[in-house]
């Protein structure tokens, strides 16, 4: 290890890359070497986390106001365009690096147990390491294109890992859908880059943000740039209208859902907005779009989560909803609050997913032991798991209380900060009253559906099956230990940014101040009185408690029957269970028409009949016909030749004499 980690920033992404190369090679030549794979796979993450801590400590010692930029090599030097492979480290990257490597290391460790029996073990760890490499590239990139390498790279790993069990079509389909939907967003990212280059002549973060003032604040250009960037965010971070890939992404192994589709990759969009806070601050229209879409998504996804039976799908919609809160935060201009929620969400949502993984692991083993083919993820097949998985049960309650926003759990502080900021912003901009209202209702639903999940999975009678029941048991320590760590973080994560209201120092807020200072100055001054703030806090807690109590009162786990016997949903429940039919609508309105147009019109009519048939082979046929006519003239009969000759001469004479 070099003396200064900051001077060797490349070590951070290089470690997981090394893991990928080694594990990838093992996957191809010796897939059975599981011990080596585990040591490499988890080892590089642990080392990366250690390096990350060292880097942050060293950085905190210097605490510079500007990001530390290290250029490695010239990547795309063309004329005035200069794009280097360059990394940067600042307060925001520091937070992201710690989350990615820290939570990542825990999830890698969990995977050792969860994936232990899988024949694709080496391939799994290779992809997971590769993901961390790209994620670190994303958060450390010093310019838009390098960030984009990470941005699409994590999408690639997501694709590979969603479709990890690729021999089932549904998994491969889900991976493909994730990639293509993300690509739609990525085009937004690309166009934003083109606009940025056109107007600032650079793609380096430092240079672009320095030059940002030359763009007219609130003008069309900066608005277009930020809206296109946000289009990218809606893809990567699963917001309306591009969120549909994330629930399907649950086809991947559960630790993948925890790492990629909850804790890290899907938060990249929030990171992007926070990173470009200068641009978003200059574009109030875009900021309200970000906040509005975030609030709307928060509520919309929460409604769907109410009626899902698959434990992972509930969590997937919950993730979409929570990402909505983060966008509400950064769209409001409360960048620190958005990032704070990103961090606490990484803790409690990773915990929820890993807990769900632990449940699924137990369910799967139970069904495996008795050779029954039931859905191991359907909550109607669970029930009463508290007795068999006490650790998982307790820890998942911690996470549930955190996500519901019950003090003093971490989620309470971060969600509350967003809500307060949104309410405060409404003073200057009444649209935020609506956003705040959406978010409050979503908070109610969040508490409700999470309690529902806990109730159905862990409480009430067990519905797994008589013989299966005895095979249900807690997972080995490699899986439980990460849960315990995440539980502690979900409980205590709030200390990162204790608000001044309760006598804290808002550490994260001050830590991020150098990154957001320009934007903070541009934001309309918003302050609410302590009394209002207290009222908001109490109100939010009341809402959360109402959600929990409501679920406990209204839902009857005793009345549930196993999935196979369950009656069909009716009414609104059916609409929610069908996710508002959005996938079906997209399919009818976009996917099928495009396929039909391509196959039946473009290919079969235009290409085959018009271009190739009529024009190409048609002209060939015309030539042949002409040749045929010509050959007919050659009859060999002198009389015909004479007639033709005479007529020809007459015509020529007539033309000549006229």
């Amino acid at each position, binding site marked *: 290890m070099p003396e200064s980690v900051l001077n060797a920033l490349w070590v951070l992404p290089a470690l997981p890359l090394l893991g990928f190369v080694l594990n990838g090679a093992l996957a191809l030549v010796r897939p059975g070497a599981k011990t080596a794979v585990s040591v490499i796979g988890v080892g590089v993450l642990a080392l990366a986390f250690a390096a990350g801590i060292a880097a942050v400590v060293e950085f905190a010692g210097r605490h510079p106001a500007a990001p530390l930029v290290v250029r490695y090599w010239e990547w795309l030097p063309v004329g005035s365009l200069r794009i280097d492979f360059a990394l940067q480290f600042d307060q925001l990257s520091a937070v992201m690096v710690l989350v990615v490597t820290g939570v990542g290391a825990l999830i890698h460790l969990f995977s050792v147990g969860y994936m232990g029996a899988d024949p694709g073990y080496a391939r799994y760890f290779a992809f997971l390491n590769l993901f961390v490499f790209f994620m670190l590239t994303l958060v450390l990139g010093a310019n838009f294109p390098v960030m984009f390498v990470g941005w699409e790279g994590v999408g690639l790993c997501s694709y590979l890992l969603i479709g990890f069990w690729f021999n089932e079509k549904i998994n491969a389909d889900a991976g*493909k859908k994730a990639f293509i939907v993300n690509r739609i967003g990525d085009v937004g990212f690309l*166009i934003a880059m083109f606009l940025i280059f056109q107007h600032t002549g650079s793609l380096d973060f430092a240079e672009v943000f320095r030059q940002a003032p030359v763009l007219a604040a609130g003008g069309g250009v900066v608005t277009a740039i930020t809206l296109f960037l946000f289009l990218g965010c809606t893809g990567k971070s699963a917001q309306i209208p591009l969120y549909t890939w994330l629930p399907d992404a649950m086809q991947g192994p559960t630790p993948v859902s925890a790492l990629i589709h909850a804790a890290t990759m899907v938060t990249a969009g929030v990171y992007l907005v926070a990173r470009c806070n200068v641009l978003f601050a200059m574009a109030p229209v875009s900021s309200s779009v970000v906040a509005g879409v975030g609030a709307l998504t928060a509520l919309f996804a929460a409604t769907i989560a109410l009626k899902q039976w698959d434990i992972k799908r509930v969590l997937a919609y919950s993730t979409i909803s929570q990402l909505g809160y983060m966008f509400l935060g950064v769209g409001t201009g409360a960048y620190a609050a958005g990032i704070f929620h990103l961090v606490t969400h990484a803790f409690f949502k990773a915990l929820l997913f890993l807990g769900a993984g632990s449940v699924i692991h137990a369910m799967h083993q139970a069904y495996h032991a008795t050779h029954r083919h039931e859905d191991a993820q359907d909550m109607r097949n669970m029930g009463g798991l508290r007795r068999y998985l006490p650790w998982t049960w307790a820890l998942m309650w911690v996470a549930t209380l955190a996500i519901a926003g019950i003090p003093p759990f971490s989620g309470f502080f971060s969600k509350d900060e967003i809500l307060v900021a949104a309410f405060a912003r409404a003073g200057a901009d009444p649209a935020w009253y609506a956003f705040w209202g959406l978010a409050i209702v979503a908070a109610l639903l969040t508490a409700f559906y999470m309690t529902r999940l806990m109730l159905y999975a862990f409480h009430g009678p067990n519905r797994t099956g008589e013989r299966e029941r005895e095979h249900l048991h807690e997972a080995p320590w490699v899986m439980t230990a990460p849960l315990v760590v995440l539980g502690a973080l979900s409980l205590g994560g709030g200390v990162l940014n204790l608000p001044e209201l309760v006598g804290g120092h808002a550490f994260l807020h001050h830590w991020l101040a150098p990154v957001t200072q320009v934007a903070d100055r541009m934001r309309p001054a918003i302050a609410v009185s302590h009394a209002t703030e207290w009222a908001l806090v109490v109100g939010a807690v009341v809402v959360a408690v109402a959600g929990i109590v409501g679920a406990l009162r209204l839902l009857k786990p005793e009345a549930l029957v196993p999935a196979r016997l369950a009656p069909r949903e009716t009414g609104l429940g059916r609409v929610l269970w069908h996710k508002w039919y959005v996938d079906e609508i997209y399919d009818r309105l976009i996917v099928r028409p495009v396929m039909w147009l391509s196959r039946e019109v473009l290919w079969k009519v235009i290409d085959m009949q018009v271009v190739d048939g009529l024009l190409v082979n048609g002209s060939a046929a015309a030539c042949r016909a002409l040749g045929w006519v010509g050959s007919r003239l050659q009859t060999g009969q002198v009389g015909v030749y004479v007639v033709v000759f005479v007529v020809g001469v007459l015509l020529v004479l007539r033309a000549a004499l006229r």
Partner: protein
Amino acid sequence: MYQTWVLTALIAWPLVAALGVLLGPARWAKHLALAASLVEFALSVPLWWTFVPAGGMQFQLDVPWIPAWGIRYTVGVDGLSLFLVLLTTFLVPLSVLGSYTYITTRERGFYALMLVLTSGMIGVFVSLDLFLFYVMWEVMLIPMYFIIGVWGGENRLYAAIKFFIYTFFGSLLMLLAILVLVYLVRQRTGVYSFSYLHLIGHMGALGPVAFWLFAAFFLAFAIKVPMFPLHTWLPDAHVEAPTAGSVILAGILLKMGTYGFLRFAVPFFPTVALHPWVQAGIVGLSLIGIVYGGLVAMVQPDFKKLIAYSSVAHLGFVMLGIWALTLQSVQGALMVMINHGISTGALFFLAGMLYERRHSRLIDAFGGIARVVPMLATILTIVSLSSIGLPSTNGFVGELLVLLGAFQTYPVATTVAAGGVIVAAMYLLPALQRVIFNPLDKPENEKLLDLTPRELAVLLPLVACILWIGLYPTPFLRRMEPAAQHFIESVRASAGTGTAAR
């Protein structure tokens, strides 16, 4: 010595070697051809180091050929053609090695034709005399005709004749245009000359005839690119051609069209090329190529046809980049030309390897084979990702530069073209899924053999290039920048639009 003779050696050596292949025993044919093409590659490699980026046209040799008609043997290389020469010498040995088991009949003929084809291709890229260029253009046409027509698939004759007549039609028009051009310049200067530099130096304003001359060149090159609606020969030719034929066809021959635009059509007739209507037409056709090519590729049941239509889309990016006339877009176009040669070449190799295993080109003949042939699946995935332009692969470098540069000239059109990036994922990823993922439900696929060392030797150099260019394209960009700059400035200057390239 090397400076003067290398290009001539690159043209002559394959011809000599072809003779050797023909005269040698049949069972040696492929080995001799491989050795010869490796020698050819080795001959060309020092070009990389000895090339001086700012040096303009270099490695020139200029001797009289048919003095009475002002025809000379003039060859040279600049930043526009350097990489096309290197790409040719790089792909040919791989194509030969990739044909080892594919070609089982009349081997001597096949390998000799491959070598003759090499001469023709190099000749096209280095000719600085229009008559010589025309001759080389035809020289490469004939071997390809036979390669498709003799060693092709079931419908090979139709495809070969279509390929031939299409290209030949264009090249005759081009010959006519060349003759008129020489005549017109002679009227002005009193000298009969086919020399590229002489012609371009004394072209002056041609008046209305310029439009028709441009149209003739346009047809010849647009067929080769191919641009919509002149593209339908390509799927047929690709599907029927043997693997090596497809690789060379996609990798090199298509680039002759775009190279023709860069070297001749646009610099000769800049006012026509930059006429608003012509611009609109060509940019429009490029967009159609990108979107239409991609959408039609998406619904192809035949893997080779899918790749063929995807070429239409990729080459659309090149045309857009050339016409946008910014430094980024033109260099991006050059990069896409190289990348398409590498990635699409690799895709055709892989399609051929799949074909050799299952004797089917249909995507649905496969499914789930990643478990059976992990190496092949891995490489197919990497190559597909490069073809859809994943960052850190070569495909991204080219497409980003084209789009970034073209956006400065045609923001709306480029926004549409950027949508092609989505379409690319829509045609290649489902195909990839249907080949290597999904259930392994066909018993024939359960016993497939993974890549042999020979096949790895064909593919790994291509994969290495995919990553090299993706991560460190700077050596390429540095070498092509002055030529691209010169291209843009000369076109802009003679078209009378003064804005300098950024």
